[in-house]
């Protein structure tokens, strides 16, 4: 049952092959068996899920199937606020925080009939590329338990890859959906900035954060995005624009589509095994009639430094609300107000979060603002211009999602900059606000383990439908996405 895609499960539910209760119970059992090892979930909502599943089955029996995800199990990254269910954001600061409201994404998926099995682990406040920064412990990669699943949506990626749940929500600020999707061999889409509401999604860097789907196939991502996308009057940065039907266009031909290969993405530094996977994918796509041309994205090398000014600057301000006054962690016996602030935050936040708050505070300080924040914003414009020029020539840009396959737990924790460079291929799309998808395209052997390789396709603004279309067509002729960790 768990090897099916979400779309296949839907057909099976419709055909009466199994019930929602059976389906949800099956995944709950798998979570119980495997989560101790993987640590992909920080909490499960078993009782509520089974109640919802029973209700879904009853409605189905009476012919009342309104939502596209009726009775299908999913899980939410623990960054999305869930009414009445603890939302920790991977932090001690919010260890016991129970929001009295749902994120828009949670609300919409619920309205579509999806059943939430629990909340997935993540790097604290979505800051990290390995899921080692969670207060609730590292998540393990189902392909090799000594390796990281990527981050920050590492819990979601590991849960889907391990088939503990068929699909999850994730968020992507600098690659946090695509990078773990690549490390875990699943499909993950970061939509155009503003396509999915950020309301109720705990902010890391507001101008970069974007929620999106993570599943085994592009088709499942399309099913989820159909429900997640749309304007939300509670989020001023969400875009007032009709959403496409991401499912109906999946079958379109991709013949004649032009894809750009940025020279800068294939230069030295790219792991040979990743390059081999990409070359093979290019061949498969050529067979489908896709045309490839080389392009330039001249300012790509500036994206990591620019990102590590903009994101920490916004985070330093966004995380100021966690002050121990109204909710969240408060230190014991504060002596005075300053002591309350200092100790609550010192105890509540982990090392990486503190590092970024400090960097961001510095970058915004009087006398440094122009040299850092303003300059980073200018670089951001340059990077967007590079993409705009590229999209005059091509429909999509193809490249690696990550420089290497999943690394070992503890391997990069000593060197933050090396860790940051993991996002070198994913960050540009965030800076420009473009949609990007990571699709499994190969496997490499490393230390006796088989590790997935991901390719990234970046599209123009609001081109998610075509992005999912090309990914789906690719998956129809390949089987990397169907492989399950041993």
């Amino acid at each position, binding site marked *: 049952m768990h090897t099916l895609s979400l779309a296949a499960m839907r057909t099976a539910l419709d055909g009466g092959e199994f019930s929602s209760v059976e389906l949800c119970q099956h995944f709950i059992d798998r979570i119980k068996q495997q989560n101790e090892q993987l640590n992909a979930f920080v909490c499960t909502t078993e009782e509520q899920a089974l109640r919802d599943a029973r209700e879904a089955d009853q409605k189905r029996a009476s012919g009342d199937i309104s939502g596209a995800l009726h009775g299908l199990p999913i899980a939410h990254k623990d960054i*999305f*606020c869930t009414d009445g269910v603890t*939302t920790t*954001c991977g932090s001690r600061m*919010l260890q016991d*925080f129970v*929001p*009295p*409201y749902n*994120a828009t994404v949670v609300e919409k998926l619920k309205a579509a009939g999806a059943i939430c099995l629990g909340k997935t682990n993540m790097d604290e406040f979505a800051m990290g590329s390995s899921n080692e920064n969670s207060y609730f412990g590292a998540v393990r990669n189902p392909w090799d338990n000594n390796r990281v699943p990527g981050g920050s949506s590492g819990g979601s990626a590991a849960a889907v890859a391990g088939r503990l749940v068929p699909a999850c929500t994730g968020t992507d600020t600098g690659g946090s959906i695509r990078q773990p999707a690549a490390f875990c061999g699943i499909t993950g889409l970061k939509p155009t900035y503003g396509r999915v509401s*950020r*309301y*109720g*999604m*705990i*902010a890391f*860097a*507001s*101008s970069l954060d974007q929620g999106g789907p993570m599943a085994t196939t592009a088709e499942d991502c399309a099913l989820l995005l159909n429900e997640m996308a749309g304007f939300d*009057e*509670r*989020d*001023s*940065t969400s875009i007032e624009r009709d959403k496409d039907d991401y499912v109906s266009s999946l079958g379109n031909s991709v013949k004649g589509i032009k894809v750009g290969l940025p020279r800068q993405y294939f230069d030295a530094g790219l792991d040979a095994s990743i390059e081999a996977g990409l070359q093979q994918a290019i061949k498969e796509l050529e067979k489908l009639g896709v045309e490839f041309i080389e392009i330039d994205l001249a300012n790509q090398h500036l994206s990591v430094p620019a990102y590590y000014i903009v994101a920490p*600057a*916004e985070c*330093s*301000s966004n*995380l*100021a*609300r*966690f*002050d121990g*006054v*109204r*909710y969240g962690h408060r230190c014991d016996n504060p002596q005075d*107000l300053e002591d309350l*602030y200092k100790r609550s935050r010192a105890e509540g936040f982990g090392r990486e979060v503190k590092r970024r708050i400090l960097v961001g*505070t510095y970058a*915004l*300080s*009087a006398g440094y*603002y122009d040299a850092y*924040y303003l300059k980073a914003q200018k670089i951001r414009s340059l990077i967007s211009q590079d993409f705009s020029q590229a999209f005059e020539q091509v429909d999509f840009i193809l490249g690696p999602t990550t420089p290497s396959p999943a690394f070992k737990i503890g391997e990069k924790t000593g060197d933050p900059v090396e860790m940051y460079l993991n996002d070198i291929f994913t960050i540009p799309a965030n800076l420009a606000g473009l949609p990007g998808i990571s699709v499994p395209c190969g496997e490499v052997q490393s230390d006796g383990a088989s590790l997935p390789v991901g390719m990234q396709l970046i599209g123009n603004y609001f081109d998610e439908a075509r992005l999912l279309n090309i990914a789906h067509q690719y998956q129809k002729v390949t089987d990397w996405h169907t492989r399950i960790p041993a």
Partner: protein
Amino acid sequence: MQWETVIGLEIHAQLATQSKIFSASSTQYGAAPNTQANAVDLGMPGVLPVLNREAVRMAVKFALATNAEIGKRNVFARKNYFYPDLPKGYQISQMSLPIVGSGKVSIEMDDGAVKEVGLTRAHLEEDAGKSVHEDFHDATGVDLNRAGTPLLEIVSEPDMRSAKEAVAYAKKIHSIVRYIEICDGNMQEGSFRCDANVSIRPVGESKLGTRSEIKNVNSFRFLERAINYEVERQIDILEAGGEVVQETRLYDADKDETRSMRSKEEANDYRYFPDPDLLPVEVEQELIDSIRNTLPELPDARRARFIAEHELSEYDAGVMTSDRYTADYFESVLENSAASPKLACSWISGELFSRLNKDGLELRASPIDTDRFSQLIARLHDNTISGKIAKEVLDKMWSSDDTADQVIDREGLRQISDSSEIEKMVDEVIASNPDQVAEYRSGKEKLLAFFVGQVMKASRGKANPGELNKLLQEKLKA
């Protein structure tokens, strides 16, 4: 040495919107603590601000009323600092691109001098909550009802040279925001707050002296006193050879003094940057035009018209246009009573205002509406009653719902203008006071007032004074 005072004001006007600037919570004053604070006002995780367009409209209205530039693309920025009544750890304000740019207003001094004061800018921002120190043993309470209330911070150039000018400017802004109905102007409730930047320099010096910023001034009277105190304090320091420190000072009305709150060194680095949760605000020309069409006649224009059209003195015109409600009241009385503007003005600013003052009421809350007051003035105008009787009638109307005519008829107060009736009374008075008549006729003309008084007494005040005077003089001459 002769010192020159230099003052600039920062005025926070609370905009009269129904809901907060970034959330749907009510802005109503005086509710139980934290009953008007939703998830956005509380700065809960993941929630986002959504701009209340009404606040934008009001700011644009202010710009139009002060001939100020409009920031057609203005940007909200975060002002970062920690305080318990600031839930998000930052205040959403505007920094480099405010909604209102430079403008100017003119102020009139008591001696009739007119002076222009420059507006540097005005920007939109959210108010913070309130820390409550009473009622909590060894702790501080936080009330977030006020958090997120829209404010327009109006910053002037350092153009004022005395406390009196500063007060005249503050009153002018107060009058404008009330005229255009963007702020209720209630200073007790904190809807209109002034901070004063005060410095002094030797007369003739062009460089500005070091300033101090006085906060917490909640009445015009206190503003004047706080500035005067501060000027004296700075003069004392400089004349003793010291230096003024740039700092924020609080005005203590009870002690009538200012005291240091924090120095420049202790000031926060607010780390302003554009708020990524809010888009830049585009103010379309269409919106500006539609707001311009709703703009009422402004105080300066109305004052000029009252002088030209109603022939009021400058002083009277100033009083009648001090706020929009008074001006509307005055014009409504004129229209309904057919009385002369001078008569209407003197009765409004005299009899009506003194009674309102006594009861501590605003004109808006007057027990006598314009209809009833107009009728009273009409009866004065058509000589149905004298001024003296009118005061009596007004008193009776004050404590009842009666119209002027109802009181006049019931009490039989109608003025006697029939000369034969008055003549009869005059004859009686002359006949019964032969000694005074003799004295008058021998040249003691001051006694006329005595005879007027006697006849008035006999008529119970109802005799038409003009008619009475005329008849008395004729009869006494004979």
